[in-house]
């Protein structure tokens, strides 16, 4: 749009004049009218200066915006012009003479338009820079300044202000311009009323309107906010100025243009040489349009512009024969100044109309206007080129296509400007108005979607595009390519094509200049055009398009543009930059398989690299162009191949840019480009043994029938393995001159088959390789070499079959394959190294294995799974592992086990064993087995068992010990070994270099004998240790004591006896010898408690023959002495220890073990659990009809006095004498004895009278235990000598006065029973 005056295409906004913010004065020579009144010198020290300092940048910033920036928020948006302090607005025409015209009128001879000019930008400039619609006059209010006595008085000051206001008001009123006064004050609270007074004074004195004419801007407030508000308030009244102006213009128009010019031609015919009626029409329509634009009335503006546009168009088409024009001359003479001016004006009006349509969100109307403009004006004579030599090179849309075979240079120049301007408008619409393009989009409403179309079309849901346009589209359900607005980028592309056309026309003209004499005008054009840098212009435009698409993230279009830009750089001989562009583009096209496009780019790269002497790039591109994927003709392929080989061999000279020494070897990685040959490596098996051959095949496939166009001969083929010792170098057999590629069968060396489709399959044996030193460009290296035929042609599969046979275990892999074309000048090395990636297109060909055996015809074996990996491993010498042991192992037993490792192989081996048994500890040292458990390990690791001779075996004893749980435990044996003398230096174990063999077996663990124990409390009626008293004096017959109470003093040590019953079940698998059984008492953790024990009866376990499956009981008496103050203590007694071993008849190995020890944990005992203990003494023999004494011993085991009450209930079986009910206080640690004489009334097992005791203080109800302890009653250890009431298994009581002792047991509540016998006489 920069080709047109900015005034003509800038979208107008109301103009505001600002006076009083700056202090500059009019230039001496300025023609502008000056203020007559005296100007008040501003006080620069006043703080109000800072307000001005804020406001000036505000207005300047606002001026940088335009109508599109404040789209839909334009109320209050003005363009500000700063007036000099003493400047007035230019008054209207001073003269009243109708023949005196304004200096911009075509009628005024001094006017630039004289005589036929339609419109000048000066007229618009007048309204943008000289005549505002409103003037803002900023003035300071009088300020008292105590320090400044030289200043004028307030009265004088106000007078000056009012004088100026009056003069300005008069000046504005003359043109109907609104004057707004803004009084800036330094605000003080006390001055509030004074300010009001002063403002009123100004208003009155100057005769200002009451409303919106005078504003106060106090210091300290936000001036910008205030000004913005003022602007909004005065906006509507301000733009009225333009409405008024429009009326004046219409009035003037009627003067110059008859109301019906068509039918009354004679009324005011323009005189010869003056402007036509059409001209005047255009002039006033344009004026009206501009003024409508100033007041933001876009509909009127468009209407007026369109009128002007149509009228102007008729001026071009009118000719002398036009009936409307009586004169002999056309309205506009072609190629005259008026003609050119009118063309420019038409272009500007077109841009204006498009712009306003876009602004009104009617993009299709804009596009339609644009197309109409192009179509209407392309037929101008200067744009038509009938010379048949001129043809277009691009496909231009029909609306822009030249009328004839091609347009003239002027046409393309003009079209470029038009389309570029339109592109810029579209770009602005996209970015500033937020229109989403392309428009219109597909009508999804009809396609089944309920989406609102207008919402789809526009990014902002609140704004909707012109309904008319929308409806039109919806009705038709057609996306008309002729009415389809796209992103600005596409129009920029079109612009660039127009420049290309212009360039093309220039080239043709230049060409013609050599053949014929050009007309003077053509010569002039040729000279002018020769100065134009077309390529740069195109690049600039394409870059604009590029930016557009880049912002939209349309990467592929940018590639297309980059390619076009590169082409232009090429045209400019700027090959380096072009090459950079092409390099970038080629990557994407290659990745996405756009081979046709890639071919196009590669060809350009070849061209540019030649120009820039980039040898490497050139060769690389040529190699890629060899690929059958590239879209090339056969002849082109031949050319490329010959060029490549010529460059390599040096027959085509090439001046290298790079250092030739470094570029002798051109390395090309085929994985990165489209290769003309694909590689496939496969081994026939994944794993093999050392010294066992494994085959591999390397297949080279030329991808298709097109490439290479001619057979290609390689000098060398290198197959590189991950171990360089296996690297293979195949040299070409230079003597082999056969180029016919006919079928050949050379047995096991060479085969060539040609099938009916023309596919040539070659099979070459490379098993017989010789180690040689090959001089390569990287230095000398050792290779396995062979000379074979290394020619390839199109549609060929060349298979090399080799063999790997080694005595070293290794994981072998082909890392790369290089094909080398050598020459004296340079070497081309084509390397493929990524064999895992499938980049071949001939999958089926590659996946089969060609099997050639002897002279038999070859077979194709499909082998999909074969990979480029071969694992070579050693053969493992055979080894047997056996074990020997007892069938069952026992817990707590040292279990011997014999491992036998037998070497079956013919070689001597050296072995290490590792053994473990789950949950067990293990040792191989017989000395360790009698030691504590902690010294044994969980695993035995890498025990060197030395050399095992061939066919020999070695035995090894190991000992397993399990003290945990029974069941099957896995024994794991691992033997790691190597062949002696062969592998001299092996790393330390563990290492995968060793052979290994594992063995696993389950060993069943059982318990040797089952032990059950129970602990029973042994009752005593007298629980306290007494020095002298004999506990059993009761037995002596003290029963007749008449004392109700007996109080005895005791110490607080209490003795309790417990009987431990041990039941031992021997198993029925193995016989044992038990050496001893003892209690391993623990020292109680609580002080004050002592534990001791004795076994009941004298047993010598060693003499006992422990039969299998028997059950034996043993008893221990445990004595616990404790202090009664210890409440409810639970004590751990300890373990029962049994020393035992297998009976010699039941073990395989006689091991030097002393004895096995089994520890059986014992129950815990709770002591002092009862606060009140009651025991009962009943004679052993009770006879019918004989009185017996029942004695209750009630002991207080607490350290408190207990109040007890006792009741004895009568019963049928007995009659009794004694307290039926009594209560007493029982002192701490004392015993109360109650005697009852009972007379049995019947015989049998009778329940004793119920005895209840109630403890008041502790609220417990102790009961007498029902357990009859006669059988289990044990003597006091101290009283064993008495032997009076000792019961042993074999001993019967000797006295008749035996007593049964009952004790309470808190868990038992049954009554006591006694057996009353009849006295047998």
């Amino acid at each position, binding site marked *: 749009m920069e080709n047109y005056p900015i005034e003509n295409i800038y979208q107008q906004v109301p103009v505001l004049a600002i006076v009083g913010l700056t202090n500059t004065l009019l230039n001496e020579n300025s023609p502008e009218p000056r203020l007559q009144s005296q100007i008040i010198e501003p006080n620069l020290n006043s703080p109000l200066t800072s307000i001005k300092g804020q406001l000036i940048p505000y207005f300047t910033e606002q001026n940088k915006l335009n109508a599109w920036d404040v789209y839909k928020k334009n109320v209050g948006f003005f363009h500000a012009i700063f007036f000099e302090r003493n400047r007035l607005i230019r008054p209207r025409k001073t003269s009243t003479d109708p023949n005196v015209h304004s200096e911009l009128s075509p009628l005024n001879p001094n006017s630039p338009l004289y005589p036929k000019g339609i419109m000048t930008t000066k007229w618009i400039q007048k309204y943008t820079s000289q005549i505002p619609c409103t003037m803002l006059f900023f003035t300071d209010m009088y300020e008292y300044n105590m320090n400044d006595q030289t200043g004028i008085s307030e009265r004088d000051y106000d007078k000056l202000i009012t004088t100026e206001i009056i003069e300005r008001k008069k000046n504005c009123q003359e043109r109907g311009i609104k004057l707004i006064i803004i009084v800036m004050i330094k605000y003080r609270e006390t001055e509030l009323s004074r300010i009001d007074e002063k403002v009123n004074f100004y208003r009155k004195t100057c005769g200002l309107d009451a409303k919106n004419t005078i504003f106060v801007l106090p210091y300290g407030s936000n001036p910008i906010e205030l000004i913005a508000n003022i602007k909004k308030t005065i906006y509507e009244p301000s733009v009225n100025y333009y409405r008024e102006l429009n009326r004046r213009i219409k009035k003037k128009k009627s003067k110059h243009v008859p109301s019906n010019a068509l039918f009354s031609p004679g009324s005011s015919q323009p005189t010869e040489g003056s402007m036509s009626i059409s001209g005047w029409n255009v002039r006033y329509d344009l004026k009206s349009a501009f003024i409508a634009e100033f007041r933001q009335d876009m509909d009127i503006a468009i209407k007026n512009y369109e009128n002007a546009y149509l009228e102007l168009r008729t001026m071009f088409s009118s000719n002398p024969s036009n009936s409307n024009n009586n004169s002999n001359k056309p309205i506009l003479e072609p190629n005259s100044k008026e003609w050119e001016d009118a063309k420019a004006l038409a272009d500007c009006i077109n841009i204006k109309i498009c712009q306003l349509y876009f602004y009104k969100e009617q993009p299709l109307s804009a596009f339609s206007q644009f197309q109409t403009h192009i179509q209407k004006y392309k037929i101008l004579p200067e744009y038509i080129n009938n010379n048949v030599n001129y043809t277009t090179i691009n496909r*231009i849309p029909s609306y822009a296509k030249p009328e004839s075979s091609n347009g003239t240079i002027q046409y393309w120049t003009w079209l470029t400007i038009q389309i570029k301007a339109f592109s810029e408008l579209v770009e602005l619409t996209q970015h500033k108005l937020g229109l989403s393009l392309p428009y219109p989009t*597909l009508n999804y409403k009809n396609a089944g*979607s309920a989406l609102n179309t207008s919402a789809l079309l526009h990014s902002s849901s609140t704004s909707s595009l012109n309904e008319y346009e929308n409806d039109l589209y919806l009705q038709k359900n057609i996306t008309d390519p*002729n009415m*389809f607005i796209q992103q600005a980028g596409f129009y920029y592309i079109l612009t660039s094509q127009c420049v290309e056309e212009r360039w093309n026309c220039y080239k043709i003209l230049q060409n013609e200049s050599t053949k014929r004499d050009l007309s003077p005008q053509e010569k002039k054009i040729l000279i002018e055009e020769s100065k134009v840098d077309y390529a740069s212009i195109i690049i600039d435009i394409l870059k604009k398009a590029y930016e557009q698409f880049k912002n939209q993230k349309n990467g592929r279009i940018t590639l297309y543009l980059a390619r076009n830009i590169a082409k232009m750089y090429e045209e400019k001989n700027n090959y380096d930059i072009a090459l950079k562009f092409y390099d970038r583009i080629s990557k994407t096209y290659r990745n*996405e398989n756009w081979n046709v496009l890639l071919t196009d780019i590669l060809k350009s790269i070849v061209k540019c690299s030649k120009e820039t002497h980039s040898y490497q790039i050139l060769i690389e591109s040529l190699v890629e162009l060899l690929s059958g994927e590239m879209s090339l003709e056969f002849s082109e392929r031949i050319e490329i191949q010959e060029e490549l080989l010529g460059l390599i061999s040096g027959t085509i000279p090439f001046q290298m840019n790079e250092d030739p020494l470094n570029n002798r070897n051109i390395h090309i990685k085929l994985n990165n480009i489209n290769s003309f040959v694909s590689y496939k490596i496969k081994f026939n098996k994944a794993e093999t043994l050392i010294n066992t051959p494994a085959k591999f095949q390397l297949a080279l496939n030329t991808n298709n029938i097109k490439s290479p166009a001619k057979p290609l001969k390689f000098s060398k083929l290198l197959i590189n393995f991950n171990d360089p010792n296996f690297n293979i170098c195949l040299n070409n057999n230079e003597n082999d001159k056969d180029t016919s590629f006919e079928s050949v069968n050379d047995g096991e060396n060479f085969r060539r088959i040609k099938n009916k489709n023309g596919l040539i399959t070659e099979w070459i044996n490379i098993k017989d390789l010789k180690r040689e030193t090959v001089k390569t460009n990287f230095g000398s290296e050792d290779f396995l070499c062979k000379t074979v035929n290394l020619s390839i042609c199109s549609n060929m599969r060349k298979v090399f079959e080799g063999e790997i046979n080694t005595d070293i275990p290794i994981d072998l892999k082909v890392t790369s394959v290089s094909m080398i074309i050598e020459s004296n000048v340079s070497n081309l090395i084509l390397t493929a190294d990524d064999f895992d990636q499938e980049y071949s297109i001939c999958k089926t060909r590659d996946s089969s294995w060609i099997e050639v055996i002897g002279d038999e015809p070859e077979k194709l074996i499909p082998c999909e799974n074969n990979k480029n990996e071969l694992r070579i491993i050693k053969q493992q010498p055979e080894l047997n592992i056996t074990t020997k042991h007892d069938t069952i192992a026992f817990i707590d037993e040292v279990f011997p086990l014999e491992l036998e490792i037998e070497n079956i192989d013919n070689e001597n081996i050296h072995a290490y064993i590792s053994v473990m048994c789950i949950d067990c500890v293990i040792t191989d040292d017989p000395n360790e087995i009698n030691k504590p458990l902690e010294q044994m390990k969980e695993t035995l690791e890498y025990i060197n068992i030395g050399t095992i001779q061939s066919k020999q075996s070695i035995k090894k004893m190991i000992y397993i010990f399990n003290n945990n749980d029974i069941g099957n435990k896995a024994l794991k044996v691992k033997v790691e070994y190597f062949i002696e003398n062969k592998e001299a230096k092996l790393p330390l174990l563990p290492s995968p270099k060793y052979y290994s063999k594992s063995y696993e077996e389950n060993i069943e663990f059982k318990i040797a004998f089952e032990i059950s124990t129970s602990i029973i409390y042994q009752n005593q009626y007298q629980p306290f240790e007494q020095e002298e008293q004999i506990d059993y004096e009761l037995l002596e017959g003290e029963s007749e004591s008449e004392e109700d109470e007996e109080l005895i003093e005791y110490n607080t040590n209490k003795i309790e006896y417990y009987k431990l019953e041990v039941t031992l079940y021997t198993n029925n698998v193995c016989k044992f010898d038990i050496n001893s059984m003892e209690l391993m008492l623990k020292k109680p953790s609580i002080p004050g408690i002592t534990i001791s024990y004795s076994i009941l009866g004298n047993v010598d376990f060693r003499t006992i023959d422990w039969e299998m499956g028997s059950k034996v009981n043993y008893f221990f008496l445990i004595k616990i002495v404790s202090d009664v103050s210890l409440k409810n203590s639970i004590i751990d007694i300890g373990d029962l220890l049994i020393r035992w071993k297998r009976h010699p008849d039941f073990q395989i190995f006689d091991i030097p073990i002393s004895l096995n020890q089994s520890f059986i944990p014992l129950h815990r005992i709770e002591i002092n659990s009862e606060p009140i203990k009651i025991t009962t003494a009943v004679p052993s023999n009770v006879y019918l009809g004989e009185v017996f004494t029942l004695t209750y011993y009630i002991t207080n085991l607490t350290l408190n006095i207990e109040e007890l009450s006792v009741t004895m209930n009568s019963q049928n079986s007995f009659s009794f004498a004694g307290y039926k009910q009594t209560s007493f206080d029982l002192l701490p640690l004392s015993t109360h004895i109650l005697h009852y004489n009972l007379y049995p009334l019947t015989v049998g097992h009778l329940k004793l009278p119920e005895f209840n005791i109630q403890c008041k203080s502790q609220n417990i109800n102790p009961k007498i235990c029902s357990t009859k302890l006669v059988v289990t009653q044990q003597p006091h250890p101290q009283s064993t000598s008495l032997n009076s009431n000792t019961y042993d298994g074999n001993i019967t009581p000797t006295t008749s006065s035996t007593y049964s002792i009952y004790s309470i047991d808190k868990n038992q509540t049954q009554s006591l029973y006694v057996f009353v016998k009849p006295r047998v006489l």
Partner: protein
Amino acid sequence: MSLTAALNTLTKISCVAIIGKMNNPMFIKNYSNEVDELKFHYLANISCDLIEAKINQTKYNDSYLGLLYIMEDLAVYGYLTNTKMKIIIILTISINPVKDMEMKQIFKKVHGVYSNLISNPFYDPDSRNTITSTSFIKGVDKIVNTSFQNDVSYS
């Protein structure tokens, strides 16, 4: 109506292109005598961008994407299958615009021919090779040759 003007009113399919889901070209055939094939490759390549932009822009529930863009006098229409295959049809712009429904039908036919192709168990739709099936090419040729017949009779 002059012959050129009459010819201008004819709608012609200039190119049919199938683009794989990795944006790789699978089939591009030039049906125009006037336009260089390379141009269609570029146009097809560019369409990938516009299709992506279009499907990202709004939620489309239809395979037919309508007119994608215009370059020179060629209008590029797009269609996206459920398997993300892109079908591109390029028309030389004529005076008579084509109805969207009509375009959609043509796309559906091409899609049908493509569906027949991938129904062949020996055809690998994921391979990045170009389509060489003769039945497919014949099918597309037939669609191109029979499309807009009404226009011809009308003109």
